[in-house]
């Protein structure tokens, strides 16, 4: 019994919402959640956005973000109910007994202060260590977390280290005061897969070596399976399933958990290339104004009618730049683009309306890609007016057809974007692109901002629409699972170059080049012990070399 560090009973959390044009009202976002966490154990909280997982994590520090308030229940840390103690007691707990690692270390470090000052601040403030002791401990943690130059990295400012390094610094910040519990809130979500694996391993080893307990919050079940002892699945503020990691992954009981475990099960038969590609990118080299180096080097790819080319790479690989070149937003320095048998003007101004119509685009952030003051009907109707000069009943009929195609239906025609969920917004963006009857659509990370199950639905929809409309996709993504699910051919990009290109079956089969191998092996897999296997495998390989 004494080993229970964190005991949460019937936790209820509320928030005040401000719907436009209505009176503010209080809603409940977590409806009575209970769990226990023993010393030195890791509990994974998993769910989609809106599940309340971050809110529950912060509640273990008696903290409510924005207008969020804890309205009921008990949170016992080290044998006392922190919801009933004074603010000064809670301040002793925060940064002392319980610490926090946020999703974006880049935003969570104060840009105006050196890393070391921020890492040791809580420990010194709580008089747990003297400044000197705390700095020594921080340097030890930097080394343990695999940061380069651990003795001096603390002297740098946050902008002087990379995102992955900063995330590890944040972990050091959380571990520095020797807490009993660390709340990890999506600590690797913002990182590239190849970086994620290192940070994940660093976090896991740090947890093991310091004997600290942790709440690990994420939407990625494959990730949480690697680090946690128990898992709690949450959905819209309710517990769906709570059990050991082994039981949740290998023997899920609830339908929702089963869906999460088996997500990304889309089967897509690869199509054969046609003799006549719809898009040909020949020797494109491009750079941004004011930079003295090229962002794209001699890129050659083709997209075939009714097929999907997935362009995959990590942040900074040049995949979005390629989309900007193809759409004419960034004229290339060299090379040319052939589309539907005709050469495209390098810049947007030189393209005909037909060029524009046949090449549409869907963006990552559906939120900001729509005018919030226009209804769904206006948004989808705009390309119909612009390209086909449709008006009145004819236009409305076509809008309804498109809404049916994206599985929303006529009822949505008068709604505003703010009234739609993330997945519905992306569907409207798809309908807007389809309205132009394009030959090809560039999809730039269209599922990255969505929850896995919703993203799955969008991918299925895109595949169905491809069959009906015979439209080609150039699909930009960093997510290899998405690539597997929808592509016919794949281009792997790294530092502005296409390092591997060909039909899906060929690109995803060995022998691999080094980068593709690294990329493929870094995608978390939904089985226990995957992380150790990969890391051990890599160590063996580097020893073998």
């Amino acid at each position: 019994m004494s080993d229970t560090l964190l005991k949460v009973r019937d936790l209820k959390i509320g928030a005040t919402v401000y719907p436009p044009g209505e009176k503010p009202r209080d809603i409940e976002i977590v409806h009575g959640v209970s769990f226990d966490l023993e010393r030195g154990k890791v509990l994974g909280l998993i769910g989609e956005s809106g599940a309340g997982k971050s809110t529950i994590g912060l509640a273990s520090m008696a903290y409510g973000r924005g207008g969020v308030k804890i309205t009921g229940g008990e949170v016992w840390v080290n044998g006392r109910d922190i919801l009933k103690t004074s603010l000064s007691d809670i301040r002793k707990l925060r940064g002392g007994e319980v610490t926090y690692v946020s999703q974006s270390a880049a935003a969570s470090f104060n840009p105006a202060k050196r890393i070391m000052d921020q890492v040791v601040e809580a420990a010194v403030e709580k008089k747990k260590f003297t400044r000197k002791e705390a700095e020594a401990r921080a340097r030890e943690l930097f080394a343990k977390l695999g940061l380069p130059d651990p003795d001096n990295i603390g002297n740098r400012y946050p902008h002087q280290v990379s995102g992955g390094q900063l995330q590890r610094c944040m972990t050091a910040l959380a571990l520095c005061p020797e807490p009993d519990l660390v709340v990890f809130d999506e600590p690797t979500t913002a990182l590239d897969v190849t970086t994620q694996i290192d940070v994940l391993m660093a976090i896991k080893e740090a947890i093991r070596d310091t004997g600290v307990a942790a709440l690990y919050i994420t939407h990625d079940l494959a990730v949480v399976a690697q680090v946690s002892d128990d898992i709690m699945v949450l959905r819209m503020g309710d517990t769906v399933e709570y059990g050991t990691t082994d039981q949740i992954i290998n023997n899920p009981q609830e339908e929702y958990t089963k869906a999460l475990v088996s997500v990304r099960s889309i089967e897509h038969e690869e199509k054969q290339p046609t003799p006549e590609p719809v898009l040909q990118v020949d020797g494109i080299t491009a750079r941004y104004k004011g930079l003295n180096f090229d962002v794209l080097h001699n890129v050659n790819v083709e997209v075939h009618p009714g097929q999907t080319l997935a362009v995959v790479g990590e942040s900074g690989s040049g995949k979005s730049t390629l989309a900007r070149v193809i759409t004419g937003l960034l004229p290339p320095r060299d090379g040319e683009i052939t589309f539907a048998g005709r050469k495209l003007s390098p810049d947007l101004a030189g393209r005909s309306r037909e060029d524009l119509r046949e090449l549409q685009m869907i963006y990552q952030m559906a939120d900001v890609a729509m005018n919030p003051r226009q209804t769904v009907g206006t948004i989808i109707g705009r390309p119909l007016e612009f390209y086909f000069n449709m008006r009145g009943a004819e236009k409305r009929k076509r809008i309804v057809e498109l809404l049916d195609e994206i599985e929303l239906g006529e009822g949505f025609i008068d709604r505003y974007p703010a009234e739609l969920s993330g997945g519905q917004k992306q569907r409207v963006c798809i309908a807007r692109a389809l309205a132009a009857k394009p030959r090809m659509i560039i999809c730039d990370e269209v599922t990255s901002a969505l929850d896995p199950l919703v993203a799955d639905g969008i991918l299925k929809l895109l595949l169905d629409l491809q069959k009906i409309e015979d439209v080609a996709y150039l699909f930009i993504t960093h997510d290899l699972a998405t690539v597997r699910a929808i592509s016919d051919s794949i281009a792997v990009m790294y530092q502005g170059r296409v390092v591997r290109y060909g039909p899906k079956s060929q690109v995803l089969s060995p022998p691999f080049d080094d980068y593709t191998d690294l990329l493929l092996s870094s995608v978390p897999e939904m089985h226990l012990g995957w992380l150790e296997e990969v890391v051990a495998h890599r160590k063996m390989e580097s020893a073998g070399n």
Partner: protein
Amino acid sequence: MHPIIKLVSQRIALGLLLLFGASALIFGLTEALPGDAAQAVLGQSATPEALANLREEMGLNRLALTRYAEWLTGILHGDLGTSLTNGLDIAESVGSRLGNTLFLAFWAALVSVPLAIFLGLLAVRYRNRWPDKLISAVTLTTISIPEFLIGYVLVYFVAVKLGMFSPLAMINDSMSFWQKLNAIALPVIVLTMVVLAHMMRMTRAAILNVMQSAYVETAELKGLSNFKVIWRHAFPNAIAPIVNVVMLNLAYLVVGVVVVEVVFVYPGMGQYLVDHVTKRDVPVVLACGVIFAAIYIGLNMVADIVAILANPRLRHPK
């Protein structure tokens, strides 16, 4: 070259260019006014012959550009010209006046800037609670009342009724430092009340803006007290906008104190300028214009440079 040095020298060069432009504008505008110095000296009833003679004598017949070049060269050598009305060297008379104005501005700034920032921090600490509302209400009231009214009210109640401080702020070189301070106490209070609200509200807004950021949440989750969160983590990131508004107000303290100087009969630049404007003493107006422009541009340049220096990305490049 370190990017900071490059950016700062760019700022300074731009400031000088702007000052040059301002001098041309001031000169051009006084040229565009009807009548000229000769007319002003001789008055409306002067004969055309006398006017022509005086113009010849003063060199007013030459090209405007030539006269501008001469005037500018003079300024660069510290020669601001001679006053038309009293024939005194402008640089000399301005010298002591400017000193007085800067003395007043300095003390007003010394009181108002720290007070404004402190009140701003206090308002953030107790945001939307009564201390915040009280601070906002009081400072907004003082900025809304015209300064001459505040001046007269203070003179009547503080100086006349209570007998504290001198009702007139006349100072001269024979006074001791403490006597001078006693003399300017009331104008300093009035100026402080006028500039306080602006700076305090900007401090509050800039810090509140920063308070939304994730690193402030990190600081709160470290269990720091509210004031430490604001002072250590929010304030350093809010310096740039605060310095900007502080500099605008400092410039106002130098350039815009005419009314207060007149109310308290303070021998500063404002009084001097007003006196000579009424007498159409163009060389004095020109000289004052350039000095005010230089102070304004200089202070804003300092604000820009502080903002550059306050940015850690520029101070410590990758």
